[in-house]
């Protein structure tokens, strides 16, 4: 992983910003002549030459040679959606409520539901048109079951855009559940840390 510079501190007053001292432009011929002579013999061009040569000698290459190495992405990164399963039963979390379809501002989620043999609502069709999706994260935020989330997968290729993306593609595979490696989304809409300690019991008295 690259040791990247930190650009997070945007407080201008603390970072040593200062106004560049720009001299007035000369108006008369003698002033212009003096400026030319000064610029000629001050050696600014050689400063530039030294700067690039220094970088070449230091050989501090900042390129990430992409397919071999990748930049780390944050846990809140909003890439292609994932459908999670329940930890306890490996069943699908999605209850087919349709909130994500309703809230989607680019109308890219389409779903269909039916009543299954156990009289439970079940998702029969679920597609996200990634060509329209703007990855705003509203679907993950609105989902009451933490079922639809964003993952970290941002590399996809296909001959047809219709291949992206259906329910089976997004659903966590069962072998991944068996291995216990399903990763919870930490972004917007996820449970905040230490949520258990803040939950109060429902007062059943009334």
């Amino acid at each position, binding site marked *: 992983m690259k040791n990247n510079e930190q650009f997070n501190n945007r407080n201008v007053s603390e970072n040593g910003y200062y106004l560049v001292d720009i001299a007035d432009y000369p108006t008369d011929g003698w002033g212009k002549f003096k400026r030319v002579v000064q610029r000629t013999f001050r050696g600014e061009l050689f400063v530039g030459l030294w700067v690039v040569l220094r970088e070449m000698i230091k050989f501090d*290459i900042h390129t990430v040679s992409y397919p071999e190495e990748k930049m780390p992405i944050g846990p809140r990164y909003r890439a292609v959606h994932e459908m999670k399963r329940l930890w306890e039963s490996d069943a699908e979390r999605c209850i087919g409520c349709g909130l994500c379809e309703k809230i989607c501002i680019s109308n890219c989620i389409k779903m269909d539901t039916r009543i299954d043999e156990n009289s439970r609502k079940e998702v029969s069709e679920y597609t996200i048109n990634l060509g329209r999706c703007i990855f705003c994260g509203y679907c993950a935020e609105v989902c009451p079951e933490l079922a639809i989330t964003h993952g970290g997968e941002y590399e996809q290729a296909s001959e047809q855009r219709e291949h992206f993306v259906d329910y089976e593609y997004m659903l966590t595979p069962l072998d991944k559940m068996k291995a216990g490696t399903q990763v919870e989304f930490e972004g917007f809409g996820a449970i905040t840390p230490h949520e258990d300690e803040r939950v109060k019991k429902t007062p059943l008295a009334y």
Partner: protein
Amino acid sequence: MDTAYLIETIIKVVVVLLIFSALAGIGTYFERKVLAFMQRRLGPMNVGPYGLLQVAADGIKLFTKEDIIPTNVVGRIFKIAPVITAATAFMAAAAIPFLPQFELFGYTVHPIISDVNIGILYILGIMGIGLYGPLLGGMASANKFALLSAARSAAVFISYEVITGLSILAPIMMVGSLSLIDFNEYQSGGIGDWIVWSQPVAFVLFWIAAFAETGRTPFHLVANDHEIIDGFGTEYSGMRWGLFFIGEYANMFFISFVIPLLFLGGYGDGSFLGALGLLAKMSFFFFFFLWTRAAWPDVRPDQLMWLCWKVLMPIAVINVVITGFVMMF
């Protein structure tokens, strides 16, 4: 003119053509690598080890691309313009001694195609003709950016030619000959004999003019990518564009040979070490072309003309006059 001389000359021509066509390709590789390292990048890495075969990939691409002649262009001139650039660049090489003479299987080889007695004048003249490539190509292209580039190349042309001519005049007065071999003989006594010590001003002026001559970065205004796309090359594709490219890089190599031959002792006394020295000096000047491209900004066309006519030309004239006085008394 006997047959042996004819055969020898043809072989030399072919060798120079092959070597410098290949060097033009390798030169692009070096340029991309050096620029990349100076900008903290890696440069070409994927084709071959360390991207060495990138040159071959580019060559295949250029050769196999469709040769497009757009509508509304002046066909004949459009087609001949890249040939002018490439051909004149290689023609200029005829009077450059690339190495000292050496023995090969008991046969003395002179690594110069033709030691004409107007050597440096011939080289500068032919290199000057090379600018007709951008000029004609730009004017024939039916493209406003190309037309701008053609106008600029005319401006560059009338500016730098004065400087090259006048700056080289003082060393010519000292040496008393236009042949590059005579220049080399004049400086063959060692570092103390180099013309750069007696003519530092002429050296710097010629060097500056060399940047305008080859159209490299401080004066890269004929094909300035960020202003006028690729200038004269905008409408060109495939091998015709490649010819412009080869011409530019061959020009850089030849001028990098000419500068040390004129001012920095050339190959010295003609020993093996001297030959290596010439190659080292040539490499430095070629590297400097790449170095400035990473470090320096471009000037505007009017600034270039201001620099050439109002600053460099008076200095060159004064230099010639002073040299004349020193030689007289």
